[in-house]
């Protein structure tokens, strides 16, 4: 076993160039075969098994990975799925503000998010959790209910607080990842490389907001419900056994659009923009409204804010 170390082809211990070709191929095939034997899974391709962390890939390697993914999705869903690799926009850090005095808890955002981001439909993975809280109690998680389902909202005596990834400046989730499969990008979005994630769920334990979700089973995404506009670090269809989370709709926001939850909200409670642009809506909110951060005492420093618009 020792002469077939899986990490060999991943870098560092290349043999001399003269024997490179065949030996390399042999090692690659042997590693893939070993992976198959060890993990008990037959369909993981050699390329996928040997793919390195997204942050370490060269431009060409990224393109070939994306090409491979697009082919896989085409075969799986029978339609063209575009996987983008749009980088952060220089001079942009995204911020989000949610008006607690306006939200009525209708969950339009929850389901728009599922549609936009290709979450598993059965079991349904939801990145936004709307908490129904007692007005008497204020923001008190002891008195929060996420399963409310009355005929009409808002209910007397309650207010509603949607919680999703807070895109922390000091994210505890990225700190605990043993393999570096999740990180905070330059525009403040915390992303996951689903191909590098080993599914240990340490990040889920570390996140104080319950914002990360695990694919316990093979995600069930009907072909006609696939959103074909995807991003490698965002809403591309995920495999079983990886963690996923809100990315501020990275595939939309890095192209100038609002996130899907902002666009759907019937009450206009959701505000989004560039924290570095002093004329943006988000800066107006931060400068003129009563704003708080959720669980501020944990010093996670969210870029997601709650405010009272009245």
């Amino acid at each position, binding site marked *: 076993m020792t002469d077939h170390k899986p990490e060999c082809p991943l870098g560092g211990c290349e043999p001399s160039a003269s024997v490179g070709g065949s030996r390399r191929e042999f090692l690659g095939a042997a590693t893939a075969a070993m992976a198959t034997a060890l993990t008990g899974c037959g369909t993981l391709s050699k390329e996928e098994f040997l793919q390195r962390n997204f942050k370490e890939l060269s431009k060409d390697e990224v393109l070939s990975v994306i090409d491979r993914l697009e082919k896989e999705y085409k075969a799986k869903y029978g339609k063209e799925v575009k996987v983008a690799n749009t980088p952060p926009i220089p001079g942009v850090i995204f911020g989000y503000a949610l008006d607690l005095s306006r939200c009525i808890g209708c969950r339009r955002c929850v389901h728009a998010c599922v549609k936009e981001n290709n979450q598993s439909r059965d079991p349904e993975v939801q990145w936004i959790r709307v908490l129904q809280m007692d007005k008497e109690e204020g923001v008190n998680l002891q008195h929060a209910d996420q399963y409310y389902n009355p005929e009409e909202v808002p209910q007397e005596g309650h207010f509603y607080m949607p919680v999703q990834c807070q895109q922390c400046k000091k994210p505890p989730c990225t700190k605990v990842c043993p393999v570096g499969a999740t990180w905070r990008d330059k525009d403040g979005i915390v992303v996951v490389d689903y191909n590098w994630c080993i599914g240990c769920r340490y990040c889920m334990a570390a996140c104080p907001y319950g914002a990360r979700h695990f694919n316990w089973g093979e995600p069930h995404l009907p072909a006609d419900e696939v959103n074909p506009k995807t991003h490698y670090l965002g809403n591309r269809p995920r495999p079983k056994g990886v963690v996923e989370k809100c990315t501020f709709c990275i595939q939309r926001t890095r192209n100038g659009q609002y996130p899907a939850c902002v666009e759907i909200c019937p009450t206009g409670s959701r505000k989004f923009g560039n924290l570095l642009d002093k004329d943006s*809506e988000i800066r107006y909110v931060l400068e003129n409204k009563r704003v708080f951060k959720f669980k501020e005492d944990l010093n996670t420093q969210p870029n997601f804010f709650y405010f009272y618009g009245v």
Partner: protein
Amino acid sequence: MRLPTLSTLAAGLLVLLGPAAFADPPAARTAPAAQAQDTAMPEGIQVPKPPFSDGIFPCTSCHDGKSMKPNFKHRELKDMHTDIVLNHGPASRWCLDCHDANNRDSLHLASGEKVAFTSSYLLCGQCHGDKLRDWRVGVHGKRTGSWNGPKQYLLCVNCHNPHTPRFQALKPLPPPAHPEQIQARKGGVR
């Protein structure tokens, strides 16, 4: 607050495009992505059509001032518009406080100045000035479009029925499944 950036942008465009830029109407640079039915306000805010009930506008098709003379008496409407429930502010409020008696196709401010239905936010803003201020900067009310470019606004009346302005309650979409109800699907890789 946006003005300095816009004017710099416009100056840049003029330098780049030369005389051709003069042909562009000024509204085009603030909101090119608007839908056909939408109207651009003088201040460059892009708003949709007011949500009239079917076939009710123009009002002057009935209220033409000849066959039907304006009746200034405060009264309960019995013959027409019986579907309108007026629950907006003090009980003394009345149709002609906002609708113009002489030209029913427009509204009027407290000063008597006429205001088109497409600029009704000016009328609302007479009392709700704080909301109008927030609305202009994009904080009160829904915005769609792009966070770094043209935005689509809604009129106050697209969300608040002016006669009964409280935001209407909605049926919530389904809640998440309880963990004990979740059955993970078999199969798949990894």
